[in-house]
């Protein structure tokens, strides 16, 4: 990423979701783009700010997600909304997902985030979200910037690709 010539392609991503499943698309695309020589900037806002926390503790919830079917004993287990009244369903689903991730050789979010840092991807936390949810900058990982919508727009206007995830 040392190449900052004008021919360098660039991409910005607005990251708005803070669950384990939704953490994947932005980090996979960002790290892959960087590996392909694209300059990447990620803007973390609302629940997406969870992905910048020093200690990641991401969870998934089957609630309101009829697309979630967990492979189990050669079949697929659907997660109807009614199961969400059972205490501990989110924790169980999260554990199941983490086991699958490991078993299938899928990177952990920690690993992808580390790769993002290594490939000099710019990561910006949303100031308004910090204020809104009363998070402290000290709770977030080192090396990130804090900014607002204008900071994002400046990046977006110069980028070849802008994604909202």
């Amino acid at each position, binding site marked *: 990423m040392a190449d900052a010539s004008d021919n360098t392609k660039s991409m910005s991503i607005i990251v708005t979701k803070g669950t384990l499943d939704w953490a994947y698309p932005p980090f*996979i695309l960002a*790290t*892959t783009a960087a*590996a*392909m*020589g694209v300059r990447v900037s990620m803007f973390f806002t609302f629940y997406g700010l969870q992905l910048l926390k020093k200690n990641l503790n991401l969870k998934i919830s089957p609630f309101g997600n009829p697309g979630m079917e967990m492979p189990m004993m050669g079949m697929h287990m659907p997660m109807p909304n009614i199961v969400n009244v059972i205490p501990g369903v989110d924790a169980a689903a999260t554990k199941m997902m983490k086991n699958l991730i490991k078993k*299938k*050789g*899928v*990177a952990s979010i920690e690993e992808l985030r580390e790769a993002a840092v290594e490939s000099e991807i710019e990561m910006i936390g949303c100031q308004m979200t910090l204020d809104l949810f009363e998070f402290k900058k000290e709770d977030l990982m080192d090396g990130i910037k804090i900014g607002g919508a204008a900071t994002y727009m400046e990046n977006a206007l110069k980028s070849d690709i802008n994604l909202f995830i």
Partner: protein
Amino acid sequence: MADVTLDAKGLNCPLPILRAKKALKDIPTGGTLEVLATDPGSAADFDAFCRTTGNELMEHSVDGGVYRFLIKHTA
């Protein structure tokens, strides 16, 4: 024989590409990297990676579920 071999077997998208990029950094221009992967998606992805970055995909083959890519570091 490649200059460096990267064993990416058992890794899923996007790790084979990320590891390959990392390995290419340490290989001088003109050097070669052999990547072994089991991710079926890697066949299309290494094609796309090489076309986009300008590195040369010299060979690719599949044998018993193991995909092999030979990449020349040109970019």
